[in-house]
């Protein structure tokens, strides 16, 4: 951004990814000459219909779904989440409970909070200091009153992976529908849904180098379903509304590429992530990685810098041409620091200073080294301003030495 001669380093791939140029290339004709409506009988529509079919197959392959008709295209991950949860409630009106976790994405959490005001009982599974679930507690909650379990595959902030395959087995055994928000996991974690008891799964195109505005709800054959949008016959009547054809076709290509790069993601990208974390933690005192570091997405490192605030870190990094994101309250304008950090019991003075670095296959080791060099002086600069920080380290008993009157 303001670092002449050097390209910006983008380490915010859990927020969104760059659309792969190959994806864009395949999409282009569908904006112009291939403009037909896939539902039309004539050749304009017909060709587009075949392209959609191909895209559906690509998604099916990446997910390891048994049938291509289990793939329902939607507008985004949030729509997929809402469709899944609302469908489970509508199809089983006698079941009035939902099991989820305290660390879900707002797409699930805010919907559940809203449903609580409508009289549904929401069970939010808590996590430990590393962001892990207690499966015994989960099992105890499963009953014939529960309409659906909705648990994310991997956490967007820390990358922590939940044992959803096992949890789905448990739910299925208890006769309970299981949904997983897998927007961060698809393309990074190999999956074969036909061998699992996962009934519904959400994915989002723009998290895996497809464009924004397209998502998928995987719906295992035989799962009772009620559409969120009713109308035309698109998606076999399960999601009415003319298909976002170009983006769906782009998503198909992105899924093919994700399949090809799965190994790279788990070796080369992982190596860059590990180097980044190790380099920063070695150079910055009073910093630590959050989440379940031995069981997380290969591209994500969430680092807490104690006694400083995340937005200030991001602004200074941005000035150096480095893009990341933070769990601080300030970055969202909300009242609390990240609900994920809070759920893990990360202390206040560290939770506000968490920075999420999320890589992709477009990053290079040179970029990683640049970030390792840039971060320590930024942290030092802000700590110099912090009332919790002395000459060479945190002041003694920081919480007592500076105990402001909180308004």
């Amino acid at each position, binding site marked *: 951004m303001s670092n002449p001669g050097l390209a910006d380093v983008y380490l915010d791939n859990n927020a969104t990814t760059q659309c792969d140029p190959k994806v864009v290339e395949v999409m282009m004709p569908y904006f112009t000459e291939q403009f037909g409506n896939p539902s039309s009988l004539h050749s304009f529509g017909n060709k587009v219909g075949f392209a959609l079919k191909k895209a559906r197959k690509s998604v099916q392959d990446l997910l390891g779904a048994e049938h291509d008709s289990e793939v329902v295209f939607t507008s985004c991950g949030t729509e997929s989440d809402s469709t899944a949860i609302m469908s489970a409630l509508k199809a089983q009106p006698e079941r009035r409970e939902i099991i989820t976790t305290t660390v879900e994405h707002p797409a699930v959490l805010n919907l559940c909070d809203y449903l609580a005001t409508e009289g549904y009982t929401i069970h939010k599974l808590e996590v430990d200091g590393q962001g892990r679930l207690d499966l015994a507690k989960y099992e105890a909650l499963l009953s014939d009153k529960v309409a659906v379990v909705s648990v994310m595959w991997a956490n967007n902030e820390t990358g922590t992976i939940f044992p959803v395959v096992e949890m789905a087995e448990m739910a299925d055994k208890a006769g309970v529908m299981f949904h997983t928000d897998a927007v961060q996991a698809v393309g990074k974690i190999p999956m074969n849904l036909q061998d699992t008891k996962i009934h519904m799964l959400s994915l989002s195109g723009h998290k895996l180098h497809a464009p924004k505005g397209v998502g998928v709800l995987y719906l295992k054959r035989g799962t009772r379903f009620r559409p969120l949008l009713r109308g035309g016959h698109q998606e076999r009547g399960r999601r009415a509304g003319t298909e976002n054809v170009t983006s769906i076709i782009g998503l198909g290509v992105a899924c093919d590429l994700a399949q090809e790069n799965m190994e790279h993601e788990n070796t080369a990208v992982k190596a860059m992530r590990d180097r980044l974390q190790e380099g920063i933690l070695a150079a910055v005192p009073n910093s630590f990685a959050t989440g379940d570091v031995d069981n997380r997405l290969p591209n994500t490192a969430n680092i807490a810098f104690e006694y400083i605030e995340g937005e200030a870190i991001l602004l200074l990094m941005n000035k150096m041409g480095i893009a990341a994101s933070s769990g601080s*309250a300030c970055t969202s304008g909300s009242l609390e620091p990240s609900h994920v950090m809070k759920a893990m019991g990360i202390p206040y003075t560290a939770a506000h200073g968490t920075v999420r670095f999320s890589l992709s296959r477009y990053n290079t080791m040179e970029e990683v080294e640049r970030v390792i060099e840039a971060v320590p002086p930024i942290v030092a600069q802000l700590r*110099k301003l912090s*009332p919790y920080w002395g000459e060479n380290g945190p002041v003694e008993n920081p919480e007592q030495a500076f105990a402001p009157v909180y308004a």
Partner: protein
Amino acid sequence: MWDYSEKVKEHFYNPKNAGALADSNAVGDVGSISCGDALRLSLKVEPETEIILDAGFQTFGCGSAIASSSALTEMVKGKTLDEALEISNQDIADFLDGLPPEKMHCSVMGREALQAAVADYRGEEWVDDHEEGALVCKCFAIDEVMIRDTIKANNLSTVADVTNFTKAGGGCSSCHESIEYILEDELKARGETFAPAGVSIAAAAPTSTPQQPLVSIDTRSSAPAEAAPGAGLYARIKKIEQVLDDIRPALRADGGDVELMDVEGKNIYVNLVGACSGCQMAAMTVGGIQQKLIEALGEFVKVIPVEKKPAAVQMGGAQ
């Protein structure tokens, strides 16, 4: 990313007076729960004159918290303690060429640190009387605590009431759902049921008579809401005229003027004359007048410029 002004960025990237003063004789420590910001302000005060000779800050906080702290230290230097206490949070925000609504509390924190430091110097105990909650109305930077307190104090029961008393919901109206939930909650607490008014909230007549001062983000300007709707058209028009009179000298200095043409519910029709009419800045002027009127009346109003055709205005054809 936030839309920070150049001034905010300047004070964030190169903060002035960073660090604690070694020889300070007044210290104020305050924090703001939202954003988790906290600020320690240290001042060096000359005992004879009570003039602030130097100021320093230490801040745990975001970009605008650091910028607000830096701005505050620049503003207070050379002032007496009493003069410094005149600085409002709005003054701090203005000094920085404005802050995003979500960040206004950073300026509030600055003002409170100043009060705390002065109290410390004078050996008084500073008690904070301002509680902050989640931001509900982004147009006017009104938080949940303020809305709840105002509902309680004035026995409010509709969204329109809340807008009239706090301004919250008077802009884009996206926060009306949140305000309804708060009302539902507060009404339940006093044993009533929230009965929302059909389709349009704006059309709903206020059900309570304003008695309390209008709550304002700027704690200095607690003007009574004597001209809220329902309080009499005459008083309301008088108030509007008063605001226009205050603005007039500035317009005349540029060779223009403004005239009140008609008042119709929330719509206030004005005629911009002279250099103002047709001027490229006309839209900005109208916006400024509208803002001043909203502040003075304590309700959301719309200022609509019209040509001087009184007959047309009377027929209601001004739009």
